[in-house]
């Protein structure tokens, strides 16, 4: 009952003209960045963060969320039509989607991708509505020790479950935590690592790090690459899948949704894990696995559903526990924080319009995306003709304007440029950026909760293991580390990464 009234309230919020507009803007931008290789949703969200300062919190977060899940839809379009994954999570869709397009079945592939994504998006939205409130209720009973242990688990899980080298990811978490302590200490006022620079006394701004590393770093890295885009101009005919297509796709969509929802709530599993797992499952259980790689519609339906369910369910830990499960969720968390909203279970009780409004907007956004992506597919593909030489300088200028508009501080633009080159170096050396951002966002909260927990226990560190929930999180953290560090698991991770 509570969920039904919450959803009704959410739809009332999401259907306000302003919020419908921001949802549309988010979905539109998401589709565009999903289609354009080289500019991902993380970079776009980072770029638009300064804009949300002046927006209503619900409208701002609805728009940013739209960019995130909108990119999933857009990414499938170029994967199917051009064999170019606009987004890393769409890589798997290329395998059979492009083969279908080559066989003249691009329309059904696009339609099944959209149907699968919409189904998964709807289920994901319902899952957030169903599991969000009880999870948040449990989390409201957490004290500082439980929060500290939970955040520790989140950080470790995000680092070790991320693709790539575990040690490097953990080092990036430590680096993020270190960046988070720059500035005056809250309790004593002592300047830590400010090097006498006044602008650093309040710490390094979240927007500066996000825009520098994700936007400037990514753009610079892409400007280094040569443009390799082959523009597809033929029209997509016959969008309707056959009855056989629908029958073949039903199971993969349901299984993909289940897999995506599972991976969505796990921190750090990365955008491609859900879609790749779905593909492997479908291939394994297929009557004739040899069809895969040659235009099997199941190879499009399952991964696309998994991809979208993963994107939606990533919101569950972020909204209920204040724990971001990915780099993009860390950006969302940062967007809430800069609006003066303390992320966590209290959001649902103190800002119900934001929580339920966002959930309802996701369903509306998914519907918008089906309409945007299918009939207008030709328009999106022709957008690939926009030359990067016009696009990227403009994005660089936009990032500088965004940063400057926050505090009118040229120093923050210098700092953004510095983080841009650091982001580039880290990318080139194979260091994941998301764990660093998670460390940066969660660091201050981790400290605050440790401080409060130790005050509560009068300095007795055993408080973390004597309280059952906290102990469970600590044991889970140790288990995750032990399992991932096991030689067999490490070997398998390297094989999957290759």
């Amino acid at each position, binding site marked *: 009952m509570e969920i039904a009234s919450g959803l009704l309230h959410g739809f009332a919020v999401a259907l306000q003209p302003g919020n419908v507009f921001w949802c549309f803007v988010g979905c539109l931008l998401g589709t565009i960045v999903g289609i354009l290789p080289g500019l991902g949703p993380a970079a776009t969200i980072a770029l638009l963060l300064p804009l949300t300062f002046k927006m209503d919190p619900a409208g701002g977060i609805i728009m940013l969320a739209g960019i995130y899940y909108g990119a999933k839809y857009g990414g499938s379009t170029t994967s199917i039509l051009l064999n170019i994954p606009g987004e890393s999570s769409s890589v798997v869709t290329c395998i059979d989607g492009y083969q279908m397009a080559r066989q003249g079945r691009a329309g059904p592939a696009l339609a099944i991708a959209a149907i699968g994504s919409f189904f998964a998006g709807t289920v994901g939205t319902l899952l957030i509505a169903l599991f969000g409130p009880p999870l948040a209720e449990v989390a409201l009973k957490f004290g500082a020790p439980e929060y500290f242990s939970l955040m520790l688990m989140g950080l470790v899980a995000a680092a070790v479950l991320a693709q790539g*080298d575990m*040690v*490097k990811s*953990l*080092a990036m978490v*430590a*680096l993020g*935590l*270190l960046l988070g*302590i720059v500035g005056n*200490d809250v*309790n*004593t006022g*002592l300047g*830590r*690592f400010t090097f006498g620079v006044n602008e650093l006394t309040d710490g390094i701004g979240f927007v500066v790090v996000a825009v520098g590393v994700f936007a*400037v770093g990514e753009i*610079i*890295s892409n*400007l*280094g*690459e*040569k443009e390799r885009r082959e523009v597809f101009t033929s029209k997509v005919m016959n969008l309707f899948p056959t009855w056989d297509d629908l029958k073949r796709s039903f199971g993969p969509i349901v299984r993909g949704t289940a897999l995506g929802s599972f991976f969505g709530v796990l921190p750090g599993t990365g955008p491609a894990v859900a879609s790749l797992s779905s593909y492997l499952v479908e291939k394994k259980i297929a009557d004739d696995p040899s069809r895969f790689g040659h235009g099997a519609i199941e190879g499009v339906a399952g991964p696309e559903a998994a991809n979208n369910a993963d994107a939606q369910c990533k919101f569950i830990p972020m909204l209920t526990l204040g724990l971001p499960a990915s780099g993009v969720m860390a950006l969302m968390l940062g967007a809430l924080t800069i609006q003066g909203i303390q992320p966590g279970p209290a959001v649902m009780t103190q800002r119900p319009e934001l929580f339920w409004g966002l959930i309802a907007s996701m369903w509306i956004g998914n519907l918008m995306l089906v309409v945007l992506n299918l009939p207008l597919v030709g328009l999106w593909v022709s957008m690939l003709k926009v030359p*990067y*030489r*016009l696009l*990227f*300088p*403009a994005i*660089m*200028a936009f990032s*500088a*304007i965004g940063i*400057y*508009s926050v505090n*009118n501080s*040229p120093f923050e*633009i*210098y700092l*953004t*440029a510095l983080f*841009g*080159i650091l982001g*580039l170096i880290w990318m*080139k*050396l*194979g*260091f994941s950026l998301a764990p660093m951002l998670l460390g940066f966002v969660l660091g201050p909260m981790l*400290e605050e909760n*440790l*401080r*409060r927990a*130790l*005050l509560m226990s009068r*300095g007795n560190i055993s408080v973390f293991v004597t309280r059952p929930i906290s102990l469970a999180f600590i044991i889970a953290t140790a288990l995750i580390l032990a399992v991932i560090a096991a030689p067999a698991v490490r070997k398998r991770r390297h094989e999957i990464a290759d």
Partner: protein
Amino acid sequence: MLGAFLKKGDVISGAVLAALGVFIITQALAWDYYTLDGPGPGFFPFWYGVAMVVLSLLLVLNAARADPDGESKGVDWHATGRAMTVWLAFALSVGLMDFLGFLISFALLAFFLVAVVFHRPFLTAAVVAVASALAFHLIFPVALSVSLPTGPLGF
């Protein structure tokens, strides 16, 4: 070889991170580790520094144990060089903003990117630079009243 490059890169980045960790620990030791109100300002930096040193040593150790011939994909030094050039141009234009204002320094950046990075004719680069700077001026300071750093010419 990418394997050899990453191995070398891992050793260098491990060494840099270890040095950073040692610096953090040294700084942290000069601050209160624990106060009556709980962890002092030196508490967290100390442990983060320790974590950094341990992880960077592990990184170096892993690099030393890795098979350098494990991967054979070549590193695109040309792409890396181009990216570095773009960053230098961006950093320079950011530095010039205080003196020339946003619009002129951005126009110079756009000109450089189009003419040098994308190898387009100077005239095309000039048109793109002026047109995009003008568009940004009309959108941000004029239409949206967003203040931008100004130069001697007042824009």
